[in-house]
């Protein structure tokens, strides 16, 4: 059974069709890539999955739950974490506090307990700190844990976004152009990180990217978008040989 299934999703902005009857099916534990040129509707798909936009047509299921009826925060709590293409960190919070916001999302303790410092709240708080510390370690941000997010370097900010999404303990992680603005060696490092996250944390990863090499390298399955339509999907090898893809995308010398 696929963990995420989009069927016949369409989206419009002021009469402009951004997505046109897109179907996607993502199996559990996959690293799934969506590629396409700028404006193909990649980020729109993310915004639909996470509930920021509601599609004009179609349905989307996450483990049998129709996400259409849920607000963004509930979708996040179900176990869908995401990063943003244009980094959206909580700039004036410390690195570890950025993670604690996500931990709040899945916390079981209510605000009163928090305010009064009940034992269950304190126990949970300790747990959260511990887990957040581990995540920071994993993404190589431990030493920066107490700094403000806006004092981090660009690469570190990207990794912090991933860490923050992971703090939601997601079953599905959405990465929006994780390699944007990175140099070759950073990209290699990123590939390792993504793979190890998937393996160690046992989750499914969906990423959008226009860097072909990265996608071909780590994705087990790929969908290609062009002008809001899915023109192909399959494993990297078949995508590489797909004629439509070559003509509309690869052919342009990527």
């Amino acid at each position: 059974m696929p963990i995420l299934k989009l069927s016949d999703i369409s989206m419009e902005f002021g009469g402009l069709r951004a997505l046109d009857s897109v179907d996607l099916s993502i199996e559990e534990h996959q690293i799934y890539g969506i590629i396409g040129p700028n404006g193909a509707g990649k980020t729109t798909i993310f915004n639909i999955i996470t509930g920021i936009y509601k599609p004009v047509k179609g349905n989307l299921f996450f483990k049998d739950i129709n996400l259409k009826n849920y607000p963004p925060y509930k979708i996040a709590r179900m176990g869908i974490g995401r990063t943003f293409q244009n980094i959206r960190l909580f700039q004036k919070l410390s690195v570890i506090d950025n993670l604690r916001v996500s931990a709040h999302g899945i916390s079981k303790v209510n605000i009163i307990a928090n305010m009064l410092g009940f034992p269950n709240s304190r126990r949970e708080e300790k747990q959260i700190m511990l887990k957040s510390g581990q995540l920071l370690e994993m993404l190589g941000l431990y030493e920066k844990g107490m700094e403000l997010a806006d004092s981090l370097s660009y690469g570190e900010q990207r990794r912090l976004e991933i860490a923050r999404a992971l703090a939601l303990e997601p079953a599905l992680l959405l990465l929006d152009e994780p390699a944007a603005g990175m140099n070759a060696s950073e990209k290699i490092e990123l590939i390792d990180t993504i793979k190890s996250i998937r393996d160690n944390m046992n989750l499914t990863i969906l990423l959008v990217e226009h860097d072909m090499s990265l996608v071909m390298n780590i994705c087990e399955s790929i969908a290609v978008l062009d002008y809001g339509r899915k023109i192909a999907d399959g494993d990297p090898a078949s995508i590489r040989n797909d004629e439509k893809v070559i003509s509309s995308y690869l052919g342009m010398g990527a």
Partner: protein
Amino acid sequence: MDAFITQQIDAYYLRIIIIIGINIILALGLNLTTGVTGQLSMGHAGFMSLGAYTAAILSLHTTLPFVVVLIAGAMAAALFGIIIGIPSLRLEGDYLAIVTIGFAEIVRVFFLNFELGGKAVGLAGIPQQTTFSIVFLIMMVVIFLNITLLNSHTGKALYSIRENEIAAQACGVNTTQLKILCFAMGAFLGGLGGGLYASYMYYISPGEFGFMKSIEILNMVVLGGMGSIPGTILGVIILTIAPEFLRVVADYRLLFYGAMLVILMIFRPNGLMGDIRWYDIKKRLPKKEVKKCQS
């Protein structure tokens, strides 16, 4: 305790200290809504007047204990906080500011027409039940709860709304609920401070809770540093004491006050202590674990 304090401290200074205490309660309320959550509220005086009038009327016409009176005032304000919080879900920034200004004006006009509240004449002879120890006690509780709340993960979620609402939602933060909650809590503290104020001043009238009062409280939060508890407290202390010292140059006081705001915003836009992170001093990162994953 109050007897001891009254003996030790000159009445004039004691009065200023008590006013500082009340202002801290008021300002910490606004700090929650505007400083922490980033919902610009320019009608805090409206909540304050709701609390003040409720408490004043109750203590004039009933024999309820003072604590009950205070809480009733605060609850009345909190109720309106929720009502005003609802537009904050749809409106942002300056639009919200205008709605809150409008709300405070409506409340003021309501009290101008409110028979039981003495209309424009106001209410006089409110029993003076606010004492140093009561203000001090409530202030300490409020500060304590603010600190525990803002240091908890819920607190961080509140800040995250100010920092980036969309990302906050993507992190599973129920921004709708927290925004309304913050408006309610801010209004609650506004009403609480209002009740204490009414019972301390003997006399309240609608004119006192005008736009300038809201601005005064906002300035306290901004001067100290938005979202910072020590900052807000410092802002309150400075802006409560400064006018007393500046009385010497009475005529130029407001002039100076205005100029100070501009200069402060240019040279320290985050307020005096907005960019200091007291948190660092208190909390440490958990110990580094033996590496479990081989990345």
